[in-house]
């Protein structure tokens, strides 16, 4: 029993280190500007105020619009998730069912492609989007995010499709189902946890992405959350209050999306990575 208590204490210490900065953000978001700018910082606000939260929703104009930032990020995250899952399912299914010589190496190369350096690709990507007139549009951003995240999703999903015995599909076909029908009524449901996992992974990676988004999006009404946050921290004037309040709020939707699904996420990742 004492061993268990010790263990829980250690867990709490670890947890404290991991989430202290976020706790600090929440706590400070209720501090007045004067209290933020003090040389004697306190853990809890001495005179709590919700003024910063009000300002997020009351100061809205075409160039600075926090609620719109959240909406945009949700739209971009979900669209990128859906589109990349769609094309990744096709690709992963292909790799699992129609392997070719070197397809194992090929799927590994996909992983390498996934992390090729982003910085030098900035100008060419912008140039490309400009040519197809997608600069400063959410579809443009979705396109780039989809291209960047799909290789990982393909790699992850491939092992799920490999795990579904082909005999199941064949049996369904014998019963008169078409190939497509067999695919979506038999194979796809069996890969559900993989699909949820890939979706969540893509969603989170779009949620925090800054470098590409700042390049592609200019108009205030189209900015995603990281871009919106960046407008609170210009060089010579950091708007601490609204920044902290906004950060607190943006974690909420992710947790709402994430927590109910985290069970699937964990099992999906284990399945995906372990089968590799």
């Amino acid at each position, binding site marked *: 029993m004492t061993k268990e208590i010790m*263990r829980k204490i250690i867990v709490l210490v670890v947890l404290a280190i991991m989430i202290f*900065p976020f706790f600090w953000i929440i706590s400070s978001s209720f501090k007045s500007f004067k209290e933020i700018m003090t040389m004697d910082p306190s853990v809890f606000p001495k005179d709590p105020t919700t003024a910063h939260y009000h300002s997020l929703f009351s100061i809205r104009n075409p160039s600075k619009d926090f609620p719109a930032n959240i909406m945009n990020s949700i739209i971009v995250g979900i669209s990128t998730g859906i589109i990349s899952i769609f094309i990744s399912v096709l690709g992963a299914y292909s790799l699992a069912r*129609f392997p070719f010589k070197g397809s194992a190496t090929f799927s590994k190369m996909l992983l390498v492609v996934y992390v090729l350096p982003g910085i030098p690709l900035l100008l060419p990507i912008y140039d490309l989007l400009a040519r197809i007139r997608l600069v400063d549009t959410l579809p443009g951003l979705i396109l780039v995010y989809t291209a960047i995240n799909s290789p990982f999703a393909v790699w992850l999903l491939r092992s799920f499709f490999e795990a579904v015995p082909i005999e199941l599909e064949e049996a369904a076909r014998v019963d008169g189902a078409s190939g497509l029908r067999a695919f979506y009524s038999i194979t796809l449901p069996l890969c559900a946890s993989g699909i949820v996992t890939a979706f969540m992974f893509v969603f989170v990676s779009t949620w925090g992405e800054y470098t590409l988004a700042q390049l592609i999006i200019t108009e205030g009404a189209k900015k995603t959350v990281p871009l919106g946050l960046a407008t609170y921290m210009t060089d010579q004037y950091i708007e601490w209050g609204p920044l902290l309040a906004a950060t607190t709020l943006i974690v909420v939707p992710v947790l709402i999306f994430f927590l109910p699904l985290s069970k699937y996420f964990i099992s999906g*990742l284990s399945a995906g990575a372990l089968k590799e």
Partner: protein
Amino acid sequence: MRSRFKGFLLLTPVLSLVALITILPIVNMIYNSLLKTQFGFGKGEFIGLSNYVKLFNDEVFVGAVGKSFIWTLENLLIQLTIPLLIALLLNKQTKFYRVTKSLILIPWVLPMVVISIVWRWLLEPNIGFVNHLITNMGFEPVNFMGSLNLTFHVLVLINSWHFIPFGTILMLAALSTVPQSLYDAAKVDGAGSFKQFIYITFPLIGKIIWFVGLLAFMWSFNTFDLIWLTTQGGPSNATMTLPTYIYKLAFKMYDAGRSSAAAFISTLILIGVGVLYFTLLSPKSDTEVKQP
């Protein structure tokens, strides 16, 4: 033959996207690296390999390559061990541990723009909370962000702090696949928990460690936001890794040609280490080619 065509057809969407957004720009980058060009557009003068020659004569570049390797190694070490330890700690199914597993994800979903500025604030020597604690304990404040020796490692820790939740979740996922019956059997044989870990757990989760290592390597090698938003590579280039160097050269010093050359070298390193990792360290079952 027909199925091969079908397979290719299904792969087309993802392949064309990758070709469009990744491969094409890389070709463009390689071309630029042979030019003397200020901004990466307009007319550049073809100068062969001299951008590369200049890079290897630039001690900041050579330093950046070295720092990138140390950066990646340090990150890897932390990001492989700590998540595993935390996962072992959290690998229980009661409510307390379930809640903890969810809460621990928070650093992973915080955008890097926020992480960098909040840590800068927390670690500031005079008004930051961490130093407030340190001085309250009677020590001198620590210059976390502006020290030639320390800052690099502080940034490694912050970067790892961001990754640890994801690594932990992966490790937990792996641990959950180890059958309890194995541990029970081991206990009967009188094996202590350390022995259990070495002989049962470790071999079974080797693959996931390999995978976490791969992700940690690739993400760490490319870390840009955090370094740029905290130190811009300073003090005195102490945190100038390859991505930071490439960005500075291209967008602050307008040497698009040389920046492209550095970027190409960085790409080669990534691919090279990636291939080595796959061939030398791959778990065994990974090399099997599955045929339906």
